[in-house]
């Protein structure tokens, strides 16, 4: 178990390392570049050259990368040139990461809370109306572009009906105390309930939009897994023991069906990050996704580099945690020494 964890951590370091080099090279090869982005296309050659030198962009790429690495080792990832000019990339990350984390967490909770029970019920009543209806629902969930769904939710529930705020993370007038950067958590910790509630209200619509794809996938995997398990011989054994249906359901069906579902949940974190880029733009939600979208628009190298690296790192890390939790559920992996 320990060896497995160490190996996976090492793998994480390698992936992030290789990725940082690739990203670094790739960012430098982008057309335009921060100089044009900062000064505009009509700047004089002299001012361009000065800024290029100031930003160190005139040096060979390996020198630049080495500088980046040594600085990064001490936590300095450079200064933003486009998203929030003047702020450091790490400041931007620390400021925005909790927002996206809050949003993604709520989205995956919604996806799990709806997807797993619905998948289970659909499998139990295979071919019934609930089954067919939820299959169609999950297929539509995949077919609808996330940002369009976000638009519709915003337009109908926020703009027309006014049930939810249309943008942002919290009303500015609340003057909430900041502790962790997680607004909901902050509100609970400082017992500023109105602030916490307001933060939740801001999260609901983007989280629903963001959960559409993870929900569809989790629903379908759960349904398929439950169908597979219901067909297993050990379910027949459990029935032959005369066990009651709730016991069979809990102990025998769900525990086994959860194995593939857990893996899927881990893989969905990638989709969540991608979805966040789109959803946050629609709801002007100040998270990582919005910063990424802005960063691409304005060629903000330091911010892009840090954010993409962190996104990939989080993705790999979560999948590692998922693999480890898999080992907790499945004794076959646990006792085999965790090799596979």
């Amino acid at each position: 178990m320990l060896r497995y964890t160490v190996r996976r951590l090492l793998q994480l370091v390698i992936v992030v390392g290789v990725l940082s080099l690739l990203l670094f090279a790739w960012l430098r090869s982008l057309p335009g570049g921060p100089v044009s982005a900062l000064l505009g296309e009509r700047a004089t050659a002299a001012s361009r050259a000065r800024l290029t030198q100031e930003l160190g962009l005139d040096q060979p790429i390996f020198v630049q990368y080495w500088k980046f690495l040594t600085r990064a080792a001490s936590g300095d990832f450079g200064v933003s040139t486009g998203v929030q000019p003047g702020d450091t990339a790490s400041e931007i990350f620390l400021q925005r990461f909790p927002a996206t984390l809050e949003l993604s967490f709520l989205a995956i909770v919604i996806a799990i809370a709806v997807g797993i029970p619905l998948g289970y019920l659909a499998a139990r009543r295979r071919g019934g109306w609930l089954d067919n209806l939820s299959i169609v629902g999950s297929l539509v969930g995949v077919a609808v572009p996330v940002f369009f769904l976000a638009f519709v939710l915003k337009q109908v529930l926020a703009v027309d009906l006014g049930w939810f705020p249309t943008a942002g993370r919290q009303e500015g007038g609340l003057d909430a105390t900041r502790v962790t950067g997680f607004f909901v958590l902050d509100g609970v910790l400082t017992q500023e309930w109105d602030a916490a509630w307001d933060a939740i209200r801001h999260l609901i619509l983007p989280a629903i939009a963001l959960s559409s794809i993870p929900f569809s996938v989790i629903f379908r995997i759960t349904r398929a897994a439950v169908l597979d398990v219901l067909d297993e011989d050990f379910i027949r054994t459990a029935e032959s023991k005369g066990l009651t249906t709730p016991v069979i359901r809990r102990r025998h069906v769900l525990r086994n069906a959860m194995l593939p579902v857990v893996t899927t949940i881990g893989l969905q974190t990638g989709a969540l990050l991608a979805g966040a880029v789109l959803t946050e733009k629609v709801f002007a939600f100040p998270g990582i996704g919005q910063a990424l979208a802005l960063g691409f628009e304005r060629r903000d190298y330091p911010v892009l580099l840090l954010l993409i690296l962190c996104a990939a790192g989080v993705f790999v890390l979560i999948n590692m945690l998922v693999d480890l939790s898999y080992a907790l559920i499945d004794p076959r992996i646990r006792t085999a020494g965790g090799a596979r």
Partner: protein
Amino acid sequence: MSTKSKIDALAATAGKIGDDPGVSVAAAAWRRLRRNPVFLTGAVIITAFIVLAILAPFIAPHDPTDPMLGDQVVKARNQIPESQEGHPLGGDQVGRDLLSRLLVGSQQTLLVGVLATLIGLTGGLILGTLAGALGGWVDSLVMRAVDVMLSIPGLLLAVSIGALFAQPNIYTLIVAVATVQIPIFARLLRGSMLAQRHSDHVLAARALGVKQRAIVFRHMLPNSLGPVIVQSTLVLAISIIEAAGLSFLGLGNPDDRIPEWGQMLGRAQNVIDSHPQLAFWPAGCIIVVALGFTLMGESLREALDPKSRR
């Protein structure tokens, strides 16, 4: 009547036990699909979509590139032509007939889906075949590369690739969307070929001294086709949706003379509050077509899955 022929006749009327022997997997799958309402729905949608794309230039009432209602557009007051005589859906932001643009837009959308899938498939085929067929260090190398690519969320990767091109156009958009699919196809193919590398029929071929190349191309690849076809159908839907996402983020094709649904949807974001029809029509088209491909893909998957053949 002789005893034997009587028995034969009777045996033929008896209940069938399981699948008939000698029916190939493909034929058996087709037999199940033909009666599957999900597959039929998807097939009807996709057929209609393709026919529409082919006939679009002939049935479109107007030239989709001509801002014929331009005089009704008032930028400052956010005024866009509404539905009117001869233009049932009204016009777009610069006064071009929306219905014509939707009809003709199907062509570019189909192009995006098909080309992106083909590129992704070809790339994945090359990488996956190399890895799955050769194994060893080639396999390790390719799969590590694929893992790194897969560790970046799909849309982010597409955005990154899309940003590489100084002059974005519809083809750079397609390449960006397709690149995301390459590692997925590669992994899929490698997985199914690896599963076969130790299967009895490949071992038998090897034992008979069949050449490596022949084993790969004649035995392993054809047997990996099932999952690849399923994935391709799904990717057709995904790439159309992702292309719309890129357009929404401002990384799509800047030239909007030739219409494409994703681009129309992406560009409607600024006027969606006042003129939702500009977003709803292309979004509806995308959803229906994506749903069609997904329905086909999912029912294909089920038909080819030996587990569901009960």
